[in-house]
């Protein structure tokens, strides 16, 4: 019997942690019970991107888009929608005007997105190679092997203008050309899946939702560079992505898409997975190779560049997951097509992980040149709780913080670098008036200091010194002279550090000193934290006029330092207060004041 419906259940890590696996099993169970299991195909796919509203279930062909589905909803989806053909209205996404969206096309979150990298995420079953093939999977590899020369492949990439999506934006074709040009008996292709930026999960979602696209691209890279061996260096913290890669590699080998004689062309290429072990610095290419070699992951000076002397001294090209995921599409649709998307210097799309104080957090893919305003307000749906926008942080601990005045800047590699931030791997963290910029800088510095490998002094000592100074600011003990010292240390670190980790550690400091100097001054001169985050600078007190003596705050206070009779104004004993803010959160009458 022909299939009437496809039922796609999100199987990304985000949705799986909200029980999407149970939903999947329940749907199967109820379909079985209703006797329609041969008329509907229930598939667990990769990430839909709309993580805020997960778990997500989508029904084809009518494209109903169910959000925040619970396992208990499975029965209704089967009995109402799959059996009777009536969409379950209460599960549909509600737009701003409270109208139920019929499909993704009605949802603002998706309207400005262009999906190249995430083309298959949320559509195919990532553990089934047939579904990837049905969506033109491995067609690019076939074209490369039988219709193209290695030079032609690299040429197509050059035309496309594809640049590294890991952060630095180095032209991919140039990396491949240099690696190919170095004479050697062995060359290596490495996929950098050591996605360490806190607040970034683009690569994980790509690998979980479409692992074959990366395997195909790596094989194409191997052919173009004359390499027969590839490594995927992936974080051990991503068990689901590792599992899907292992499944995909097994299927590819069985189908002759990986191995000695690929598709009978005589070309050889195979891939091995190597696990990272929680060291941020291993995202740096020379450190990454040290780690694959089984050593402490410490960077080594460049040159020689990896394309000349890389893994075990052999020419090596290291590309990021997202970079690879673009390659098969470029081969099939042509470099010119790809180059028609984006800005003058940055082509194609970029995937961002949009998180923080935003209504629609999730994974978004937009053409290069999209403005921050479009991402934050149109796609992201604005700031949570109607708060005021304060800043966007891009590029993780190596990036910078951008303020309101740059909301209309088109995003590409150059524009972000010019503003003292960087593209980075794609984390975009939105901050509202409730977030303290200095506290955020302290958070990033703490991260970079802990992750410094300690090999070179500018990073090891400079980072620690910077952190101490920023901590002084958050405690209200810093002086204006400390700001000058911070700038000096930053200058030295940028120039003298061995690798980009040290060189970019000062970025959050410098960009905030430039755009948010006022907040530093408030901490240093007025001894105040405008957002009320820096505990040493905050005092809680009770407004005697507003307090009705309900005793809720006194009961919530972990220190027991709020006293007062019932129905009488209460008081906080400042000597015992630990500034946890529990009383502020508990008070329904706005009587607890923060200053």
């Amino acid at each position, binding site marked *: 019997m022909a299939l009437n419906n496809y039922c796609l259940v999100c199987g990304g890590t*985000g949705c799986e942690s909200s029980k999407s696996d149970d939903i999947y099993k329940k749907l199967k169970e109820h379909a079985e019970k209703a006797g329609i299991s041969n008329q509907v195909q229930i598939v667990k796919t990769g990430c839909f991107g709309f993580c805020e509203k997960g778990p997500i279930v989508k029904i084809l062909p009518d494209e109903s888009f169910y959000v925040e589905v619970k396992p208990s909803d499975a029965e209704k989806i089967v009995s109402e929608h799959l059996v009777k053909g009536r969409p379950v209205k209460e599960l549909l996404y509600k737009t701003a005007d409270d109208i139920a969206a019929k499909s993704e096309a009605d949802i603002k979150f998706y309207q400005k997105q262009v999906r190249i990298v995430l083309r298959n995420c949320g559509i195919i079953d990532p553990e089934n190679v047939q579904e990837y093939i049905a969506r033109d999977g491995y067609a690019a590899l076939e074209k490369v092997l039988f219709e193209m020369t290695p030079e032609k492949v690299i040429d197509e990439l050059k035309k496309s203008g594809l640049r590294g999506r890991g952060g630095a934006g180095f032209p991919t074709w140039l990396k491949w050309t240099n690696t190919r040009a170095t004479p050697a008996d062995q060359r290596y292709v490495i996929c950098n899946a050591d996605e360490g930026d*806190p*607040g970034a999960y683009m690569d994980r979602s790509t690998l979980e939702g479409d692992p074959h696209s990366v395997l195909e691209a790596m094989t194409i890279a191997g052919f173009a560079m004359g390499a027969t061996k590839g490594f995927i260096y992936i974080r051990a913290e991503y068990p689901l992505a590792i599992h899907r890669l292992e499944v995909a590699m097994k299927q590819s080998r069985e189908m002759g898409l990986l191995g000695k004689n690929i598709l009978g062309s005589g070309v050889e290429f195979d891939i091995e997975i190597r*696990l990272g072990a929680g060291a941020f610095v291993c995202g740096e290419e020379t450190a990454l190779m040290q780690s694959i070699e089984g050593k*402490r992951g410490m960077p080594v000076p460049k040159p020689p560049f990896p394309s000349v002397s890389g893994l075990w001294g052999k020419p090596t090209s290291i590309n990021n997951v997202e970079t690879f995921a673009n390659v098969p599409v470029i081969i099939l649709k042509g470099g010119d097509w790809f180059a028609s998307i984006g800005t003058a210097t940055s082509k194609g799309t970029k995937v961002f992980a949009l998180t923080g104080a935003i209504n629609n957090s999730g994974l978004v893919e937009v053409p290069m040149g999209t403005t921050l305003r479009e991402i934050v307000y149109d796609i992201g749906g604005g700031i949570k709780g109607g708060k005021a926008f304060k800043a966007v942080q891009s590029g993780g601990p190596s990036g910078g913080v951008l303020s309101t005045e740059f909301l209309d800047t088109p995003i590409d590699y150059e524009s972000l670098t010019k503003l003292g931030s960087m593209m980075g791997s794609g984390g975009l963290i939105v901050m509202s008036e409730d977030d303290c910029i200095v506290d955020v800088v302290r958070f990033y510095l703490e*991260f970079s200091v802990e992750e410094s490998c300690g090999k070179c002094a500018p990073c090891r000592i400079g980072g620690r010194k910077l952190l101490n100074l920023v901590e002084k600011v958050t405690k209200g003990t810093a002086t204006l002279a400390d700001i000058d010292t911070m700038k000096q240390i930053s200058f030295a670190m940028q120039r003298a550090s061995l690798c980009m980790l040290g060189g970019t550690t000062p970025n959050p400091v410098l960009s905030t000193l430039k755009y948010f100097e006022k907040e530093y001054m408030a901490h240093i001169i007025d001894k105040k934290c405008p957002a009320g985050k820096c505990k040493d600078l905050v005092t809680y007190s009770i407004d005697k006029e507003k307090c009705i003596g309900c005793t809720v705050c006194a009961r919530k206070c972990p220190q027991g330092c709020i006293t007062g009779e019932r129905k009488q104004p209460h008081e906080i004993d400042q000597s015992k207060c630990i500034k946890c803010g529990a009383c502020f959160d508990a008070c329904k009458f706005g009587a607890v004041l923060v200053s």
Partner: protein
Amino acid sequence: MSVQTLPAQESVEFSPALVSFIEEWKDKPGNLIMVLHRLQEEFGYLPRAAVIKMSQMIDVPLAKIYGVITFYHFFKLNRPGKFNIQVCLGTACYLKGGQDIIQELENLLGIGVNQVTDDGLFSVEAVRCVGCCGLAPVAVVGGEVFGKVDPEKLPEILAKFKGV
């Protein structure tokens, strides 16, 4: 010169699966980190006796192995609790109050980060981004991910594991 290694203080048994994994990787270049991962998977951490035994099997000096273990955050030298609680302190979770979760766990369990409760049931760990930023703040208890965690809900979450 023969290589002298410390005698194992306690005897340790390797499962046949573990032994065959080590044999398979023994001669591959750059095997050390992969073998350490497998060892930690087996024991939940890296017991000294097991590392000594492994060092002899793959013929890598103990000093080099400890150099690698201590470089990477993922490798643990102490036994974690039966249910390890990983509190995400990635940027999104930090901004949404990941630190408050750690604070509350400290109050509830009486242990700080990287410590184990006396009954060996829980341990607390602060981890980098677990990649569910949409669900921030996130805590992973015994492998199960809990999203949008409210510190007030923690006793409920812990109770679920105490009964197991």
